[in-house]
Structures are given as C-alpha cells and as structure tokens.
C-alpha cells in the first residue's frame, strides 16, 4: 500500500550527493516562478535561505521518519521554516508566495529521483510518494506559521486599539470626561470602567461625563454596559452624566424600551459640562466687550 508512506531511506543520501544541482535547479525554479517577488527579496538572500533549508532538511531526514513529523528530529527544519514564514509575512508576502518556497522544491527533487533511479520504476514511485508527503507537510507547516504570525499581529493591534480608544481626561477640577469612540462591547466596557474608576480615585473627582458622540449605534447591550458604568461610578461616590446622544440614538433608545432611569443625559458635551460646573460650584462669565 502506498498510503502508508514508507520512510524514504534514500532521499538523504541523494540530497547529499546532488546538493549543488538541486540548489541550482531549485533557485531557477523559484526565481522563474510567477510568484517570485524580486521587489521584496534579493537573489543572494534567497540563495542563502535555500542553502540553509536544504542542509537542515538533509540532517532531519537522515534519521527521522516522516510519520514522526511532530517529533524532536524535525524541530530544526520547522524552526527555520517558522522564522522564514514570520519574516516573509512581515515583509508582505502572500501565504501562497510563502508556501511556494517549499513547494517549488518538488520539481528539482523529482527530476533528481528520476535521474538517480532510472530503471527501478517500483522504487521511484515509492520515493516520489515519500518526498511528496514530506514536502506537503513542510509546505502546510509554512502556511500555518505564516498564519500564526498574522494572528499575532492582529491580536497586538486589537490590544493597542483598546488602549488607544479609552482615554479619561480631566476637564476641570473635580470633573472628568470619557469620550467614547467606536462600538462598546463587554471587554471595552470593562476597561473604560476600570480606567474611569481609577481616575476618580486618583483625582478625587465628583462628576464624570461619558460622551457617546463617537459611538455609532446604541442597542440594548450597549445601553446596559453604559448603565453598569454609571452604577459603578455612583458606588464610588461620583455622579455620572451621559452626553452626546444623537437624535437617532435617542429614538433607538426609546424604541428599544431601554430605561435609563435616574441617569442625567445631555445632548452635547457642552451642556453636560455646564451642569458639571454648576454642581461643583463654578461659574464662567463672559468678559464685557471692550469699547473702542
């Protein structure tokens, strides 16, 4: 049965004896392919990488079965491939361009096998199958590593976005403001709540204004999150005003039957600020116009 891939015992030896030709063929294959990115990769670097990979592959294939791909013996090749995928993902290669690095090795290896095993059809098929399985596994591994790198980037950006979008600013003595931008989910509410409460403790503020001008939609869940933040602020001993409620959002809130209860709501941040000044006992006066 071909399905149970036998250990291709002769591959390491062939790799060793034919190293130069394979490298030559492989480089030609890679640079000639439509997916070759001359703008992102220098030929010299590619030669370096290809050479290192062949060496690592040969070492790994020497004493380790392909069936044992998860084992210790293949870690050298895999580490090299992860590094390669990572650097290529960051440089802007597509996943197929990255995987082509491994898959383009098939052609040179197959022609080498054909050359070496002339006359032994049975053995040739066997070796080709083994090689094919091995390269497929390595190719898939590159794609996986590529994807892992992209996911890292995405999760890091997500974290950065969370931090960026929830500043707590001091508007006046005793008055804080939280300008919310973007959708409000539970994770963000938690962060907004925490940073607001910490700021209340550190500044001793007695009024907090939550401005939702930048929140695109308010559904029942978002409203609930807002109410939770207001309740927590009140427990700390500070009052909370929600401002920046746009006409459409006011309509949505009523249509949804959300009860904002005792919470003070204002249409604009300016209105909320006026109330806050009143409560803290401040008064702003306009200077009398100078008369010429």
């Amino acid at each position, binding site marked *: 049965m071909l399905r149970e891939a036998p250990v291709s015992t002769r591959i390491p030896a062939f790799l060793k004896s034919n190293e130069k030709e394979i490298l030559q063929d492989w480089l030609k294959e890679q640079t000639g392919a439509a997916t070759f990115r001359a703008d992102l990769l220098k030929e010299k670097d590619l030669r370096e990488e290809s050479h290192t990979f062949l060496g690592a592959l040969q070492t790994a294939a020497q004493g380790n079965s392909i069936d044992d791909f998860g084992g210790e013996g293949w870690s050298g090749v895999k580490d090299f491939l992860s590094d390669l995928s990572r650097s290529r993902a960051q440089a802007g290669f597509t996943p197929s361009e990255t995987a082509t690095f491994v898959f383009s090795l098939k052609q040179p290896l197959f022609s080498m096998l054909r050359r070496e095993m002339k006359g032994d059809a049975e053995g040739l098929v066997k070796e080709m199958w083994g090689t094919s399985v091995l390269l497929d596994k390595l190719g898939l591994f590159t794609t996986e590593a590529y994807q892992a790198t992209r996911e890292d980037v995405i999760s890091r950006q997500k974290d950065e976005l969370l931090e960026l979008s929830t500043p707590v600013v001091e508007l006046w003595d005793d008055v804080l403001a939280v300008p919310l931008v973007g959708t409000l989910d539970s994770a963000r509410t*938690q962060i907004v*709540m*925490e940073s607001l*409460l*910490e700021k*209340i*403790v550190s500044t*001793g503020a*007695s009024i907090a204004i939550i401005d939702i001008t930048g929140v695109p939609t308010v559904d029942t869940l978002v409203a609930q999150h807002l109410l*939770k933040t207001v*309740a*927590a*602020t*009140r*427990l*700390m*001993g*500070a009052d909370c005003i929600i401002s920046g409620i746009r006409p459409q959002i006011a309509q949505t809130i009523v249509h949804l039957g959300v009860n904002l209860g005792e919470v003070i709501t204002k249409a604009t941040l300016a209105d909320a600020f006026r109330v806050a000044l009143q409560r803290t006992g401040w008064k702003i006066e306009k200077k009398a116009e100078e008369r010429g």
Partner: protein
Amino acid sequence: MERIPILKMGPFLLVTIQVDMHDQLALTLQDDLTAKISKERSRGVLIDISALDVVDSFIGRMIANISAMARVLDAQTVVVGMQPSVAITLVELGLPLEGVHTALNVEKGMALLHRRLDEVRA
C-alpha cells in the same frame, strides 16, 4: 469575639471596616449598629470600606440591608471609599445599592451627611 468598632461623632456614627468581612462579623455589625443608632438617636451613619478589597453577594446585600435599616431608624447612610474593583464586582453581581448614598472619601462623606442633615432641618 471579633467585633467592628462603632465610633460616635456628634449626631453621626462612624464605622470603619478594616478586617476581612466574613458573614458572622457582618451579622454582628448589623445588630450592633441598629442598637447603637436607636440608643444614641443618631441621624447619620458613615461606613468606610476603603480597606475592603473583596466582596461577595452576601456582604453586598448586607451593606444594602444596613442602610435600609438605618433609614427606618431615621438615619442616613453614606458608604465611602469603595475600591474600583469592589464597585465593579457589585455592579456585575447586580447589586448597585440603590438608595445608598456614596462618597469618595470620609471627608466628602461627612460633608454629604451634614448637607443632608441641614436639608432635613430646614
């Protein structure tokens, strides 16, 4: 037996919780406080929980209960110095302590109690 001290300050009572609040302690405090309010005829109670950094639903309900009982005995309750984590926990537990007055620290809490008392007398 371990007890939480209740200090008298003019017309107000001051309770500072500085140990881990376990259930029996909370029940004892409830008894002591109601007895003290009716004995001293206090008009306000200030509970400082700034040293409390863990609450459960029982303690949360206890604080709400104490304040409701004080109100029945004609005393206002102010809870001061709540930690952010405690506030978040209480909200998540669905115990926003409706009807309990809150203040950021003892100073502000005292000012609030005096203001309330003036309002009632006026």
